[in-house]
C-alpha cells in the first residue's frame, strides 16, 4: 500500500518538475518583459497578448515551423525504414563484419558536432545543397541513424529467436517473414524510435544554423535564435515561440503514445 502511495507521490513530483519550467514559460510569454525582470511572481498579475501578436505579425513564424516539420518528418521516415532494415540484419542475421558495422555506426556519433560542422559545410556546399531541404535531411539522417539502429537492434533482439524459422517452415521467404511477422511485433520499438528521431531533428540547432541561409529554410531553433538582438533577449517572444513550437511535437507524441499502447495489447498482456 505504501508502495502505491510513494509511487504516486513520486510521480506527481516528477510531473511537477517536468511541467513547472514550461508552466513558467507559458506564464512569462503572456507577461510584459519589464515586469518579468522587476518582480517575478509564480502567478501572473497581468496578461498580455503582445508577444504572440508580434510573433506572427512581425516575424513570419509559420514558415520555420513548416520547415522543421518537413525536415524532421522526412528524416524520421528515412531513419526508421532504413534503420529497421539494418537493425534487423544486425540483430537477427549472423554475418561476418557485423560487429565492426555496429561499432562504426556508433562511432560516427562520437565526434563533437562543432568539429564536424566546418568540413560538413564544405561538403554540402560542394554538393550545392546549402539552404535546401536535402541539405538538412542528409546530415540529420546520418547523425540520427545510429540511435535509431541501436534502439531497433535492441527491440529486434527481444523477439523470440525462432520466429523467422517458424514462418519459413510455412513457406515464407526471409523478406516476407521480416515484413509480415517481425515488423508488426516491433510496433512499440518503431514508434519509440520515430519519436526519438523526430525530437532530435526538431531540437537540432548547429547544423540548421550553418546549412540554411534564409528565412525560407530556417527551422524553429534557428528562427528563435534570430530573435535575439546584439544584447537583448526578447524573452516574451522567445517563450511565446517556444510554446507554439512545442505544440506540434506534443500532439505527435500523444498520437504515437496510442500506437505504443496498441502494440502492447496485441501481445496479450494487460496494459
Amino acid at each position, binding site marked *: 500500500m505504501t508502495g502505491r502511495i510513494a509511487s504516486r507521490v513520486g510521480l506527481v513530483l516528477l510531473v511537477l518538475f*517536468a*511541467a513547472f519550467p514550461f508552466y513558467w514559460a507559458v506564464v512569462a510569454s503572456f507577461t510584459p518583459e519589464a515586469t518579468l525582470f522587476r518582480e517575478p511572481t509564480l502567478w501572473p498579475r497581468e496578461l498580455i497578448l503582445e508577444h504572440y501578436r508580434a510573433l506572427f505579425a512581425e516575424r513570419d513564424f509559420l514558415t520555420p515551423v513548416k520547415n522543421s516539420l518537413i525536415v524532421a518528418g522526412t528524416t524520421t521516415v528515412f531513419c526508421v525504414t532504413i534503420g529497421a532494415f539494418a537493425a534487423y540484419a544486425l540483430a537477427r542475421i549472423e554475418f561476418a563484419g557485423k560487429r565492426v558495422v555496429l561499432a562504426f555506426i556508433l562511432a560516427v556519433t562520437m565526434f*563533437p558536432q562543432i568539429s564536424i560542422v566546418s568540413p560538413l559545410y564544405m561538403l554540402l556546399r560542394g554538393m550545392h545543397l546549402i539552404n535546401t531541404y536535402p541539405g538538412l535531411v542528409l546530415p540529420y539522417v*546520418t547523425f540520427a541513424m545510429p540511435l535509431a539502429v541501436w534502439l531497433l537492434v535492441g527491440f529486434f533482439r527481444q523477439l523470440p529467436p525462432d520466429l523467422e524459422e517458424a514462418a519459413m517452415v510455412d513457406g515464407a521467404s526471409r523478406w516476407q517473414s521480416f515484413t509480415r511477422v517481425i515488423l508488426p511485433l516491433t510496433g512499440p520499438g518503431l514508434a519509440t524510435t520515430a519519436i526519438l528521431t523526430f525530437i532530435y531533428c526538431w531540437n537540432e540547432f548547429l547544423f540548421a544554423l550553418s546549412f540554411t541561409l534564409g528565412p525560407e529554410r530556417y527551422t524553429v531553433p534557428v528562427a528563435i535564435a534570430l530573435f535575439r538582438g546584439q544584447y537583448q533577449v526578447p524573452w516574451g517572444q522567445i517563450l511565446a515561440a517556444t510554446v507554439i513550437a512545442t505544440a506540434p511535437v506534443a500532439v505527435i507524441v500523444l498520437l504515437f*503514445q496510442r500506437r505504443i499502447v496498441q502494440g502492447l495489447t496485441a501481445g496479450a498482456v494487460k496494459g
Partner: protein
Amino acid sequence: MTPIQPAPSRAPRPESEARTGWLLTAPALLAILVIALFPLAWTVWESLHEHDLRMPWLGRPFVGLGNYLTILHDARFWQALGHTALFAIISVTVELVLGLALALAMNRGFRGRGVVRAAVLVPWAIPTVVAALLWRFIFDSQAGIANVVLTNVGILHHPLVWFVHAATAWVPVILADVWKTTPFVALLLLAGLQSIDKELYEAASTDGASAWWQLTRITIPLLKPAILVALIFRTLDAFRVFDLIYVMTGGGPGTSTEPVALYTFNALLQNLEFGYGAALSVIIFLVTFALAMLYMRGLGLDLGGPRRR
C-alpha cells in the same frame, strides 16, 4: 532415431545469409558514409597538422602527433575533461535513476497516462538553447523565480548569486540537463519495460517476492539492453555537452564549468586553431569510444548480441 535437423530448404546457407545481411545493412551504411566520411577523415587529417587560420604565413606544417602532445600538457584541457566527467557522471546517474522511476510509474495502468507521458516529454521537445535560457532565467539572481521561491520557503536566507561560484553554478546546469533529457531515458526504459513478460511478475508475486526483489531480480536484469543503450547515448551526449553550458555559464566563473566541447569550440571557431581543435575532437571521440566499450564489458553485453546456435 532420426536426428532432428531442419530440412535444407529451411535453414539459410551462411553465404546467402551474409549477402542478405549486407544487403539490408547497406542503405543505412551508405547514408552514413556519404555524409560522415569526409568530415571525419578531414578532422583526423587536420589534427595532424598545425593550422591556424588567422596566420596563413605560418603555413600548415605536418606535425604528426604534435597537437596531441600539446593537449596532454595543457592544464586547461585536463580541467575541462574533469568538468565534463563530473557533469556526465552526475547527470547520467540522476537521469537513469529518475528515468527508471518515471518509466516504472508510467508503466502502471492509470487514467490520463497518455497525457502524463506527453506532458513529461515536453521538456525534451524544447530546443536546448531555449531550455538553457529558461533555466538561466529561473536561476537569475535578480529576476529568477528560484531565488524567490527558495527564500520564501526559507531554504535560503537571502538570494543567492548562483552563477558566481563554481559549486553553485553546476546546480542549475545539471538541473537543466536532467530536466531536459530524463524524458528520453524514461521513454527508452519504458519501451524496454513493456517488452518484459508480465507473467514473470505474476509468478514472482505468487511466490511471495517483494517489490524490491522483483525490481532487482526481474526488471533490471531484463532491462539491461535498454539501460545499455540509454547509458551509451546519454554519456555520449553528456561528453559532448556544449549548447547548454555555453548559454548558461559560458564556461564561467573563470573556466570552472567549461567542458571539453566548449573548449574545442573556442579553439576551432573562435580562435580559428583548426589543427588543435581537430585534435581535441579526436580525443573526445577516443574517450567516448573507450567509455562505450567499457559499458558493454561492464554490463556483460556483446556488440553482436547473443550468438545464434
